[in-house]
């Protein structure tokens, strides 16, 4: 999905080099969870 308002984890990570060395395995699912939660919320407003 090509949008300013949605990032895949890879895109997010590329923009956040400060996360190197941090516990990515714990961070990734959490960050993506809220990205997807926002997607569901937004889409539910127009469904």
């Amino acid at each position, binding site marked *: 999905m090509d949008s300013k308002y949605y990032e895949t984890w890879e895109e997010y990570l590329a923009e956040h080099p400060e996360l190197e060395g941090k516990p990515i395995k714990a961070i990734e699912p959490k960050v993506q969870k809220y990205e997807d939660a*926002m997607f569901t919320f937004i*889409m539910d407003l127009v469904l």
Partner: protein
Amino acid sequence: MTDAVAMTNERNQMFSDLFSGKTPKRVPVSNPATQDFAIQYAGLDLAECQWDLTKLEPVYDKFCQDFFTDTYPGGSIRLPSHYQILGSTPIVMSSSGFMQHPDVVGMLAEEYDEFIASPYDCIVETILPRLFTELNGAPGKVAMALAKAMRAQSDDLAYLGTIRAKMNAKYGFATMSAALTEAPFDFMADFLRSFKGISGDVRRHPDKIAAACEAVLPLMIKKGTLPNPSMLGYTFIPLHMAPYLRDKDFLTLYWPTFKKMVETLAGMGQTVQLFVEQDWMRYIDYLYELPENTIMRFEYGDAKVVKEKLGKKHIISGFYPVTLLQTGTKQQCVDKAKELLDILAPGGRYWWQADKSIINLEANGPVVENLRAVLEYVHENGAY
């Protein structure tokens, strides 16, 4: 309660069998009445109970106790709090306390190109601010409205979830998940172009409609994807606009992306349930083409023809007329249930659901007795 746990397991097995084309031990039955009905049944104020959810647990308890059902009742629910916070225009509560969808325009015809270039960008930047007044203003205020609304909806859903967990533990319902999405054409119509708008677009800009449907297809698929595709559950797709189109417009504008969406979801291992609203009888051969074991709940149509043409490949549901429950005698209602069982159950692939949801409880009418009788009847006599 181990009884409830055993019942949940049994019901989950019934639905797993049904969804994979096997024949369960009996016809599963689902109560078509909604949370709105349940609130009225409990004698409470409809609007108030949709705001103060603490009133709902006893509502659901009585509802579950008095009406037999294999699946958790209540239907699709839109609660007012986040809509109010956002200044919603497409979903509003009427004077009667029911949440409804007036025909409003979210996207103008001249905005098709913007949408096609990036649907999600267009939704966020153009469509939502038009439809939701609190999302149209100073950035700080918009950000706060969004945050409050998301929190309100999240809290509401979580609270309803706790009630559901309690009811499941007490009554042993099947534990199924659902994800909601729409056919791309319906998505373009419902909140974006409106019924009136898309009807004009079909004549004036059919190429833009087609391109918009293709552009939004990945979003519709993502929206309809369950957290774990193989889990017990389904993607729920209410079908809206097709009966209002000419055949040739259906073929070129509605069908291609709708078919692709269902095929993609089924290809992931997900079950798809279509709510085939209005009259699709002229499109029945198209429905046949969809992936095997697509659940099709019909509002209108000829049950015999549907069973004959679709019943060996797909899972048939619906047809039972809720208006009969509201106006008929108990015998007439039970006879109708028997009539449909006789047509649709033989050979399997049948799930008892009504033709639509029951949202209104007519206080002086027979609906309560009739509904109870029919649900019991199908439970006790629903053999394949």
